């Protein structure tokens, strides 16, 4: 059943990977999201990995993940007839999101001003790498380039070695989600006064917003943070955040402040198992940490923390991720296993909350399991509304049903390469 949260709202999604998550969030909230694809298919259909390792327009698991619940039509915007069809769709839509190079839609006569004349209610979000004003407004940006531009990349990796991105690139997901929030903010007054507007989303700024408290550090404390592998330089000191265990890694932090009780609890656990070295077992805990101070100050203090990290590391090496996780939960430690996809799929909490959702993909004759509701809403449940569409799957429904074209007209448009 469709979510009624955004009942009756229609979004035209002209994006590629730079905005796929925006339309996905709207689809999850019950909006009708029409993915407008060029006749050769959206470029996100070509993003690995592929189902059964067989590349194909319907096989991209990236596409299957982020286009789920949308409808697909094909439309050649480079043709005059195609542009006319888009205008007809715009008249009947509430939102439009796109991530074209700046000026591209204007060059086709489809810029915001033109579209707003056709439909003053339209909320048009343009997702850009660097905004629409600076020297980089026309720059190209693959995800890794946006990740670098916003400062997140510099902080990932080891000293002296290249800065890193994640195996699932993140920058454009932040930008897509930001486009969703901004579109919703604009939606709220629009439903009262009937006026839409144009939104420019800046991916670089979105990545800056992942830096937590580091952005202002250089101005207030005089220096910037360096990357340091598994150590954190945040909040003073240099503490280890990732420990090895028997079958992987676990995140844990020995520190005071909010981490004080957790640090003592792991020492108590080590004592219980006779695994605490004598200096730690007999000394009554770490001398240098306090409930109020996050970090120790003197060199001697730091030595004690280094020694404690070494002892905890030896202890964790005797435990599996699962054992550590059980104890983290029971003993209320501040820790977490470095979960991989298999761990997440098997997680008891997600199962208890019926998180994952399986959808039927009729065209492929397969079922796909997707991340479920991003929030549990008591009156208007949200979540995946179906499988990702096949290329042009909804041409007849949208062009015939929504725009009222005849079957003959649709056949002609197809023959002419317009849809």
């Amino acid at each position, binding site marked *: 059943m469709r979510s009624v949260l955004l009942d009756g709202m229609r979004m035209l999604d002209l994006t590629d990977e730079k905005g796929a998550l925006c339309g996905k969030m709207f689809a999850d909230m019950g909006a009708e999201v029409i993915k407008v694809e060029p006749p050769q298919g959206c470029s996100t259909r070509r993003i690995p990995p592929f189902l059964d390792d067989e590349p194909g327009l319907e096989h991209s698991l990236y596409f299957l993940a982020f286009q789920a619940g949308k409808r697909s039509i094909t439309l050649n915007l480079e043709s005059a007839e195609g542009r006319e069809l888009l205008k007809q769709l715009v008249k009947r839509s509430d939102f439009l999101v796109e991530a074209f190079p700046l000026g591209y839609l204007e060059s086709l006569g489809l810029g915001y001003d033109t579209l707003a004349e056709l439909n003053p209610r339209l909320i048009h979000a343009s997702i850009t790498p660097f905004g629409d004003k600076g020297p980089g407004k026309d720059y190209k940006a693959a995800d890794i380039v946006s990740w670098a531009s916003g400062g997140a990349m510099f902080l990932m990796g080891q000293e002296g070695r290249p*800065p890193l991105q994640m195996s699932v690139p*993140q920058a454009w997901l*932040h930008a897509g989600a*930001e486009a969703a929030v901004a579109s919703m903010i604009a939606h709220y007054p629009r439903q009262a006064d009937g006026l839409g507007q144009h939104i420019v989303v800046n991916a670089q700024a979105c990545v800056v917003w992942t830096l937590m408290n580091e952005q202002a*550090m250089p101005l207030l404390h005089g220096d910037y943070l360096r990357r340091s592998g598994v150590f954190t330089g945040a909040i003073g000191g240099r503490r280890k955040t990732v420990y090895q265990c028997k079958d992987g890694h676990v995140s844990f932090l020995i520190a005071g402040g909010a981490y004080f009780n957790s640090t003592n609890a792991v020492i108590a656990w080590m004592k219980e198992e006779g695994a605490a070295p004598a200096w730690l077992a007999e000394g009554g805990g770490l001398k240098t940490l306090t409930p109020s101070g996050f970090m120790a100050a003197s060199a001697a203090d730091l030595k004690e923390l280094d020694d404690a990290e070494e002892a905890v590391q030896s202890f964790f090496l005797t435990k599996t991720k699962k054992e550590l996780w059980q104890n983290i939960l029971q003993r209320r430690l501040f820790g977490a296993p470095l979960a991989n996809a298999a761990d997440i799929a098997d997680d008891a909490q997600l199962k208890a909350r019926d998180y994952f959702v399986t959808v039927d993909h009729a065209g492929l004759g397969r079922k796909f399991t*997707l991340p479920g509701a991003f929030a549990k809403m008591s*009156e208007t449940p949200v979540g995946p509304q179906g499988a990702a569409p096949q290329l042009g799957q909804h041409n007849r429904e949208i062009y015939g049903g929504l725009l009222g074209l005849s079957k003959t007209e649709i056949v002609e448009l197809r023959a002419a390469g317009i849809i």
Partner: protein
Amino acid sequence: MSHLPFAGIRILDFTWYAVGPVTTKYFADYGADVVRIESAARLDGLRLAPPWKDAHPGVNNSQFFASFNTSKRGLALDMSKPRAREIFLKMLPWADVVTESFTPKTLRNWGLDYASMRAIKPDLIMLSTCMQGQTGPHRDYPGFGNLMAALSGFYHISGYSEAEPCPPYGAYTDFIAPRFSACALIAALDYRRRTGKGQFIDMAQYEASLHNVAPMLVDYFASGRVLGPTGNRSERYTPHGAYRCTDEDGHERWIAIAVADDSEWQALIAVMGNPPVDARFATMLGRFHDQAALDEFVGSIVRTRGADELTVALQAAGVSAYPVQNCMDLHRDENLEAFGFWHWLDHKEMGPSPYEGLEHRMSRTPGGLQRPAPALGQHTDEVLGEILGMAAAEIEELKREKVIY
């Protein structure tokens, strides 16, 4: 009279740390009256963390707190005291939305669950956001976004190899979840306007964040493949990575480059002055086949270039590239500057302080930082006077009893 989108929307905001405050910041920066209810007895941890004004710690000196709490009013109320809870319940009918981000048992212990609040305010919208959600065996798991980033897979896909994990910086998932919770909350307000119905939003940071690794999960369920850390390798671009440029004033500088096809590769080689190139590297396939050698080659030709000038040259030739900016560079970045990203606001105690702006701009109803973050209890008198009509004498008495601050 404000014409901002959320003018007239009132939020009583118990959230702390990052996810909740960043969520309600969207509302405050767009005109909602967001009253941050803080306890002086149990401070928001961000008030106790740097960066500090002049590197000097103090509850009203943290830019960490300030960044996430612009445009809000501050009410200091010690909710562990029954009289404070009475005051809150008296304020409740004024509010459209209540938000909180404690572990689920906290509000239960105060006797303030959604059902009891709804009895007073029937169309109330409430957002509860915590690590793992309000139900399930792990609902009371306490944690921060750095741990959630490990639990939801981000740490595992970060590193040079399985043996060399290199997690993303900080409480990463704290900066994923707010966009999802803000969407849910705005949509709930819109739904209430249409139907008259409020609702309860149970937001698990975990469940929102997993959307940012959706392809990894869909792949696992479909094929059993377990994605690991792949360094900077890509299956779509080659070369693809960060390469060291010349140092500047003793600081290392790197450039990120992603080459999508052979014509971009030729453009890159031309920008580099047509150095001799191994014939294998002429095609995508050839470059994919020996990426270690390719990275070494690209690294060698980039090493003598400046990250900024090389970016301009590569972009002019149609190649995707940008300097790997550090946090100092971001304050000199001309694209962020042109977007008007940084703002200096005059905080009550900190004086002029640097704030991040919005990540988007609107043409008709532009939002923005309406005012700096509140000092602890800065608006206690004002809020209680305005909402409850509380007299100065009563406010003084409550302060003496440390119910309010």
